[in-house]
């Protein structure tokens, strides 16, 4: 790749320069700054807030996965919760105690069970994909919705794996290089998990960004914009829809394997429609077909319960008790819906769109276009 000319950010002398992820100095410095802040964040933050952020990091991986499928390739899927569940149970089973009550293989190294969870979920995704490639739009949404219910039935009934309804089982334990990340030592559990999740998120985010700007990503975009036209241009529809489902499920599986590490237990009823809707919300609120948007959306959704629990300070009529009404849990549910509606109406490009707006304002300065 030839060198860039100084002070001429719009002068590209090769496609490599134009396509590179950090094509301007400002971007490179910005990313570096965000990463530095992220790395130092756990040192100066309360553990309970950190726990919220940890959830956000894991959500972000899953949201990126859904964004690849729904945002980039335009295939609406309500079945994300199913793949999350597959990942979660795969990881739990792999790292579980071989002598315990439930299925377990005693492999506690996350470097094995994280990819394994992803692969098993991806395999399920690939099984479903041939069905999905024949459908689009509303029909696809309904079929994937069905998947959630079938999945939930399986999880509840397969007691030796899941422990059954209302009971649950222990989640995967991450023991990395002999250190249990869920035990406090020199650093607290939250700090260690934060760094672990952060590394994984960075890896998966960069991976997704690279997929999105490659031939595959362009094929996805072509399918999203008009599948018939894409087919005419030579994009192999079934192949790329298969890839989209596979990738998306892989990300979901990875997110699922990590999602319950902090809390330590998981029950089959958690993989219901609500989880799918939450992920759809992350994608829509964050920004369709953007990686950083998906991360922003995931962070916001992860923080929503925390925000809700703070609300009674300001809105005394909201109750903290689930028995009273209106309470913060109801508020949370309404907030998901309200946020989706509000963003779709007023900022269809999501949080990323707000960022774009700010960026454009300064980029076009002192003009407006």
């Amino acid at each position: 790749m030839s060198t860039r000319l100084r002070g001429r950010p719009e002068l590209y002398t090769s496609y490599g320069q134009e396509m590179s992820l950090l094509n301007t100095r400002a971007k490179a410095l910005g990313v570096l700054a965000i990463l530095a802040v992220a790395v130092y964040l756990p040192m100066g933050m309360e553990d309970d807030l950190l726990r919220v952020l940890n959830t956000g990091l894991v959500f972000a991986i899953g949201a990126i996965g859904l964004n690849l499928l729904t945002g980039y390739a335009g295939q609406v899927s309500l079945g994300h919760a199913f793949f999350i569940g597959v990942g979660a149970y795969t990881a739990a089973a792999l790292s579980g105690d071989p002598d315990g009550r439930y299925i377990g293989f005693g492999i506690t190294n996350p470097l094995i069970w994280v990819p394994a969870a992803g692969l098993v979920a991806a395999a399920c995704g690939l099984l479903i994909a041939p069905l999905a490639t024949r459908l689009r739009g509303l029909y696809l949404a309904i079929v994937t919705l069905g998947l959630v219910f079938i999945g939930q039935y399986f999880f509840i009934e397969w007691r030796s794996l899941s422990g059954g309804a209302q009971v649950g089982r222990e989640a995967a334990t991450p023991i990395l290089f002999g250190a249990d990340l869920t035990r406090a030592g020199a650093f607290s559990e939250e700090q260690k998990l934060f760094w672990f999740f952060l590394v994984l998120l960075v890896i998966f985010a960069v991976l997704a960004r690279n997929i999105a700007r490659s031939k595959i990503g362009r094929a996805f975009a072509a399918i999203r914009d008009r599948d018939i036209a894409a087919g005419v241009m030579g994009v192999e529809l079934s192949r790329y829809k298969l890839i989209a489902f596979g990738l998306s499920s892989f990300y979901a599986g990875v997110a699922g394997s990590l999602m319950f590490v902090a809390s330590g237990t998981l029950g089959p009823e958690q993989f219901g429609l609500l989880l799918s809707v939450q992920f759809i919300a992350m994608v829509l609120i964050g920004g369709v077909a953007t990686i950083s948007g998906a991360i922003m959306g995931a962070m916001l959704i992860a923080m929503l319960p925390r925000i809700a629990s703070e609300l009674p300070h300001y809105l005394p009529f909201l109750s903290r008790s689930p028995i009273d009404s209106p309470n913060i849990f109801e508020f949370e549910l309404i907030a998901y819906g309200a946020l989706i509606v509000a963003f779709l109406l007023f900022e269809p490009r999501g949080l990323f769109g707000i960022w774009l707006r700010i960026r454009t304002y300064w980029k076009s300065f002192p003009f407006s276009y």
Partner: protein
Amino acid sequence: MITTLVTRVRDRAASNPDGIALRKKDLGVWQETTWAAYWETIQLTAHGLIALGIEPGDRVSIQSENRPEWVILDLATVAVRGVTVGLYPTNPSAEVAYLVSHSGSKVHFAEDQEQLDKILEVRDECPEATTLVYTEPRGIESRYDVPGLTSWQELQELGAKHRAAHPDAVEQRMTAAEPDDVVTLVYTSGTTGPPKGAMLTHRNVEFGIETVIGQGSFVDPSANDKDLTLSYLPLCHVAERFFTTWYNAAAGTQVNFAESIDTVAVNLREIQPTLLFAVPRIWEKLLATARIKVDSASRVKRAYGRFWLRQADAIGTVLAESGGNHTTSTRIRYAIGWVLFYRAFLTRLGLRRVRHAACGAAPIAPDVLRFFMGVGVPMHEVYGMTENTAMATANRPGRVMLGSVGEAVEGAEITLDEDTHEILTRHPGVFLGYWRDEEATAKAIDADGWLHTGDVGEWDGTHLRVTDRMKDIIITAGGKNVAPSEIENGLKASPFIKEAIVIGDRRKYLTALIGIELDTVGEWAQRQGLGFTTYRDLTDKPEVRALVDGIVKEVNSRHNPVEQIKDFRMLPKELDHEDGELTATQKVKRSAIDKSFGELVEQMYSGAGRGEGAR
């Protein structure tokens, strides 16, 4: 062996083989050519030309937009002691026939199907043009069966074969070059009569290079291989040839070819050139764009932008008075403004890195220059013409006088004719004569070697002011001499006016034909909530007429009553080269205007239907 453009390129290719010589935007990316590759292609092309039978003195004509092949073929022709003839890409086929047959070109380069069709249409009239070369195969390859048709690729292959057989052929020709070898015929646009081909020699070109680039009095520090230029004006014009080919060969500046004249704004932003030459039309357009963009910005940005443009106005006024030098107060004001506004403003216009800007080839309103000086573009008006290799006077850094075209360049003698005040120049850059036109040559160069420029001027200290073209001076029925270009440029300084033609020769009073700028007036109309369909429709709106009326009154207030425009009419169409109303350099052909719009002019003098206002 004398130093020529070609030896300069050869030597640079040897000393800096991996440096960038050219850039061209292709498929969205600026593809780079190194000096080594550049020189290699020139050599191959030169061999190809010899193989095609080009002998010393033979002409090679080029009709193409600016692109690497243009300069490569130009230099290859010079290398084999041929003569390059540049045609405007806008020349219609009738003019192509005249230029190719008059110059007697043996090889004609037409970049694509569009240009090729023009020459093919008139091929019978150009029997000497035996070879036609094209470079864009689209629509041509395997469709055209024409004798002598060769692709650029085939020319290179021919050259490679010839080089294998005669490796020294090009070098021998280069060694044999004489200072009085004609290197190019530059056909002047000819607002009256057919174009005349000015012969420029190695001696002329080398004088130009020595004066402008060698002595470093124009650009400080001297132009060098870190400088970027944008090539977008027609290369057959002497000014752009100077700025693109000669600067590149002599100083090693990196030439960037704009995609087309319509993308100049975008390409400027991408390239951010350090040296920029533009004709008044381009500067006026840039100014209009800047004003419109500030005016159509969101409320806060608009107020902010207007504030800083007012500051720039004040700074520009001070700079104009002090010859382009900052005073302490303007320096501080500009420094603050640079951080807060001008930096971003100039970046968006693509002028941020310009360290030397020049304007020439036509008269320009001082207001336009003042604006650019105020926002921080070091602006210099220069004066020259094809016949003296674009060398006569120039404003130098630190000694700028607005409204003048500067001081005589080094080594040039400039004087005014005692009776007519015509500007006369004498220096080694004065051309050899007009091609195949002894009579015109004798008229242009007198026995003492003075070139009669046809421009009327006056001295202001050591600075020269150009009043107007001699033949354009209007003598009113009252016997007053009026220079129309000053009034016209005053009008054209408004972003809304594209063309202004002042009329009044042997008439009672002055009138004008005015053409609006479709983009800016269209935008203005939109903001006023005026609907319109076509240029004609927009022109006929009473609101637009009122807008123009305001500008005319404003300009009138700056002139004494004799020089005021008493009435005007709007041009019902955009003037166009194809329709013969403009020359290839976008200058108005008065004779054609009289023919097309004579009726409008008569209306203004007949008293009937006299326009409101503007009195």
